[in-house]
């Protein structure tokens, strides 16, 4: 698989857009660091699957979308939801099961959903949202409202048959859907080479679908490629499959600590990705070297975000749990 990297040229994103990408990536990282902290302090129930390391994927793609475009997300979904515009306060509240959360506490970390940002919902079934995203694209085409749907999933979802049914249907009917495959190389504790035969990109290509690999640690490359295929889909020219090569820094979930990770991936691999390919660091270096901004400006953004995230955590921690008599509300519309 060849990796295409495009630099921001005249045709590329402007300064505001670039700074916004930085802000969004950093917001995700700061958010997830606090999730990790809340979880290890036993303040967060359930499981937490951190997106740290993969920020450029969600941000690069969502920055190519309109607010009324759709996304579906995964168990590792905080990054997607934030990149599509979710409010950290309401996110944290949901993660802690509070009434003030996006789903009134009923969904939790793996089910954040938000119509106001086109978020059709995170999904705890691997490939479980492939149908939903494809169906949203079907509605967009039928209702002629020009929306594009992005289906985020990990490379582990390539094991689920329904994904192939959906790709066939999407290509057959030329639906405006982008299948965004985040290849962080591991399905839980198994390297993808032990679960995936052949060339990953050949799978969507077999349906005649446009398919391209991207360096998922390069937010500009992700944005430029996403924009190309999103606009193509919007023009009615059909779906696309993006293979985003990336890496999760933490364990499969917070409980999957370094000692456990040793059974499936070498420390050296983790270090290499974190030190030489970190999407935020790389982007910062580029912003500075290109003189698009200066250290001070970036530090201001970081201060702002840090304050916002700390405030969001405080809001969520102090928020109220839903009253137990709410348990059987919202079953039927």
């Amino acid at each position, binding site marked *: 698989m060849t990796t295409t990297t495009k630099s921001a040229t005249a045709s590329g994103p402007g300064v505001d857009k670039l700074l916004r990408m930085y802000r969004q990536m950093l917001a995700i990282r700061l958010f997830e660091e606090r999730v990790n902290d809340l979880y290890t302090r036993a303040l967060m129930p359930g499981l937490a699957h951190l997106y740290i390391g993969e920020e450029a994927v969600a941000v690069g793609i969502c920055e190519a979308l309109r607010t009324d475009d*759709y996304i579906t997300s995964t168990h590792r979904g905080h990054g997607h939801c934030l990149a599509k515009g979710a409010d950290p306060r309401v996110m944290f509240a949901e993660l802690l099961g509070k009434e003030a*959360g*996006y*789903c*009134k*506490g*009923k*969904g939790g970390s793996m*089910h954040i*959903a*938000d*119509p106001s940002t086109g978020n*059709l*919902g995170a*999904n705890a*079934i691997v490939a*479980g*949202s*492939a*149908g*939903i*995203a*494809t*169906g*949203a*694209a*079907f*509605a*967009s085409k*039928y*209702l002629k*409202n020009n*929306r594009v*749907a992005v289906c985020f999933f990990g490379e582990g979802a390539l094991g689920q*048959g*329904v994904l192939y*049914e*959906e790709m*066939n*249907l999407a290509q*057959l009917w030329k639906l405006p859907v982008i299948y965004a495959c985040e290849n962080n190389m591991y399905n839980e504790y198994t390297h993808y080479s032990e679960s995936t035969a052949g060339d990953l990109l050949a799978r969507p290509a077999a349906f005649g679908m446009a398919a391209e690999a991207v360096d998922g640690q390069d937010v500009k490359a992700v944005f430029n490629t996403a924009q190309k295929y999103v606009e193509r889909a919007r023009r009615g020219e059909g779906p696309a499959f993006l293979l985003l090569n990336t890496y999760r820094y933490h364990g499969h979930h917070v409980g999957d600590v370094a000692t456990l990770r040793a059974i499936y991936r070498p420390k050296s691999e983790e270090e290499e990705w974190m030190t030489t390919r970190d999407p935020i660091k790389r982007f910062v270096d580029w912003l500075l070297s290109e003189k698009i901004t200066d250290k001070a400006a970036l530090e201001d953004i970081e201060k702002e975000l840090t304050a916002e995230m700390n405030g969001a955590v405080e809001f969520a921690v102090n928020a109220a749990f839903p009253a137990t008599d709410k348990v059987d*509300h*919202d*079953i*039927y*519309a």
Partner: protein
Amino acid sequence: MPETATQVRQLGFGEAIREAIAEEMRRDPSIVLMGEDVAEAGTTFKQLKGLVEEFGKDRIIDTPISEAGFTGIGVGAAMTGMRPIVDIMFGDFLTLIMDQLVNQAAKIHYMSGGKWKVPLVVRATMGALRRSGSQHSQSLHAWPSHIPGLKVVVPSTPYDAKGLFKAAIRDDNPVVVFEDKISYTKVKGPVPEEEYIIPLGVADVKREGSDITFVATSSMVQVALGAATMLEEVGVSAEVVDPRTTWPLDEKTLVDSVKKTSRCIVIDEGYYRYGVTGELAAVIQEGAFYDLDGPVRRLGAKHVPIPFSPPLEDVTVPTERDVFELARQMCNK
């Protein structure tokens, strides 16, 4: 059913359903119907013949043999402004869409804290006695009935089928409609020209009686009515109550009938064990225990994969004779 029923025009079971779909599609452009060979062929059972001529291939849509795939599309399209009807040719194929139906469609409204809605109709068939073998003869309506978030319709007459189907289409929740295959050709009945809707969750007393209550669903309503007629000759007056929907369930009408008659047989074509008869019998004995003469009895399909050989298949499903014998014995006549 209106008193005038006998004067109004007679329609077949399949015709009534086609009419319900056609009327709703004329009223609401957001309704589409998709499935295998639903367009020119009008389904394998031919009962949708004519719809594609009126509504065109954009709204009556032939799909690949991808039940999970197009049901998933139905879920996503339902969330984003449409009212899709998906056609599952044989109810036995529900096995293939359980994730879309149960982990996705049924839970999305609740998991999103009431923010997303899924106005989806899944048409599926049920019923044996067509010599179709173990994989094309099952009545699996107990499965979705078990799942919170779904509604389940099991019509027994053309009148009910039309009125309930229209209600299912207008419902903002995922509704599964089970159509008995034999009824397509065998059951005709009065259907008034003027529009009507039958709300989901209202049982119907199909025949009044004083000695025993038959609670019967779908194909078994005809069987119960036949047995009731036979029982007249031996001086037993049987009441036949049709729940019409297994969920929502009209417990009161069932329980009140049994309180009156003091005896009850529940009759359903699904497998006997851990199915519909168990729930209804449990509900009835909970509600009418002190008025019962004896235990609530159950008749369902034998706990056997449905055999192909006609003489064997004929003894797997409850018959008028079975109901007659058991009722007679319960009434000591």
